[in-house]
């Protein structure tokens, strides 16, 4: 069976590299093919990588606080690029400061993300969800 593909990267002007390396390692270990575009990645790089590799999901990390600005419009751009049903996950420290999590989550779901993770989420949690979401699609 062909491996499922995940585009992985840290969006915007964000240079936090450690979580990205760990996610890469864990996803690979879990049997996924990882297309890691690394830190400091604009929306376009995510989309291009997803198109090129025909990916099943995009894992966006944002640690540094600008997540809300950086992620705006990503779903729309995916749609424009024909990635209509690609899974969009986001995690890290996605907003500035300590905010009410339900509120934050809603804002990102409204932006079109399928899954939104709070600070310090273990890679395993995201991987479990991904496996589930993908198996639902068959």
């Amino acid at each position: 069976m062909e491996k499922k593909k995940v585009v992985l990267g840290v969006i915007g002007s964000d240079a936090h590299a450690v979580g990205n390396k760990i996610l890469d390692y864990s996803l690979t270990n879990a049997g996924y093919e990882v297309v890691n575009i690394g830190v400091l990645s604009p929306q376009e790089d995510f989309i291009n990588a997803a198109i090129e590799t025909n990916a099943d999901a995009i894992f966006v990390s944002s640690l540094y606080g600008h997540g809300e600005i950086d992620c705006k419009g990503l779903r729309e751009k995916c749609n424009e690029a024909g990635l209509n049903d690609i899974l969009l996950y986001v995690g890290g420290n996605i907003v500035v400061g300590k905010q009410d999590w339900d509120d934050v989550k809603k804002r990102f779901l409204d932006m079109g993300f399928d899954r939104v993770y709070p600070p310090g989420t273990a890679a395993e949690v995201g991987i479990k969800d991904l496996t589930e979401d993908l198996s639902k699609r068959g």
Partner: protein
Amino acid sequence: MNLKNKRLSDEAFFKEREEVLAGWPTGKEVDLQEAVDYLKKVPDEKNFAKALELAKRKGITLAQPRAGVPLIDKHIELLNHLSKEGGADLLPSTIDAYSRQNRYDECQVGIDESLKEGRAMMNGFPAVNHGVKGCRQVYESIDKPVQARHGTPDSRLLAEVIHAGGWTSNEGGGISYNVPYAKSVSIEKSLSDWMYCDRLVGFYAEQGIEINREPFGPLTGTLVPPSMAIVTGVIEALLAAEQGVKSITVGYGQCGNLVQDVAAIRALEELTEQYLKEYGYNDVVVTTVFHQWMGGFPEDESKAFGVISFGTATAALAGATKVIVKTPHEAIGIPTKEANAAGIKATKMVLNLLEGQRLPMSKELETEIEIIKAEVKCIMDKTFELGSGDLAVGTVKAFEAGVIDIPFAPSNYNAGKVMPARDNNGAVRYYMTGNIPFTKDIIDFNQSKLGERSEFEKRELSFQMTIDDIFAVGKGKLIGRP
């Protein structure tokens, strides 16, 4: 390579300067002569370099938070809170992450959105966008020295704006603000850009104005072995001194083993002074900065206070000139001003309790200092050799060759072959040394230390151990035991 570790000529500097100032409209506000006059009026107690020098003389450790919000009035309110309620000795202005990539147009979006939403939409103070005027407004509204803290590979325009704005210190350097903060900026480019920043400070020094410069010691904040951090500090200090900088604060981020951390600060200070002297820079004041734990924090605020306070105790016992303060919100997000002040208060309390106390010299401490110095020497010797005596060239080549190699760095110019892990006492050791030209003795020492842990935990040395160590502090332990 055009690069050379040589003081920029006035001609070259002023030519480059024109281009730099044209980078954003606020560049026009910078008038060097007027800035000199302005800076001459900075009183001693608001001069960063002088405050550090005084602390060094008194043998005390100063506390400095990190803090920055996008809008000027909110930023001033924040700094005053940290000074008055928190008791900070030195103030920061953390620059936002768009500015760090020189994306001043995006900063404008961030400022506008912040105004619109009524909350900070950016992670720092966009100093270039606020210009000399904005920076002076900040400087004039506070009662302590202020420094720009950021992570900008090309900070030339930023340096121009902040210094003219009365900010008497700039953090960063050609290695330390590139490799942990950028992906595709060459070492050559960032070294050259930081030479400009240093030359600017050197220029001010020639006008009798003391401005402090501070290499960013913690690098990726993630299990960086002491000697690797110290190498970058020593190199950046030497490069800065060549450009005429007279006040340098070399830094180091806590690893967690008390003896190793104290050894690191002692070695850092001694080596920096020694190399500076060796290369003929005799009038540089060297001070040190210890960063409280820079890796992942525990979410629980009480535990965070524990991490903060233990880091402070280490800083004091090491005799660092200043300590950079974390907050109980670290794991979650940019702290509120209250949380930030809370971190400072815990820090100051511990500093006060330990004022004057030092970790006494012991066989263990001596051994750690020696091993750090031996490791540094291997890397420094090879770096000079690769540059045929030119440190700037050598540094570029050392990165190419993986002689200098910083764990977990995002930069494409970093080899990424070195892997650290904790030994059985929590000290950070080299698990994979990549292309670092260590002697066999050093490699054996590192391996044997790690072997003790392997044996204790009854598992092979592996990348899993490193991963476990990365998460350990966040989970409430120092060592990532299975």
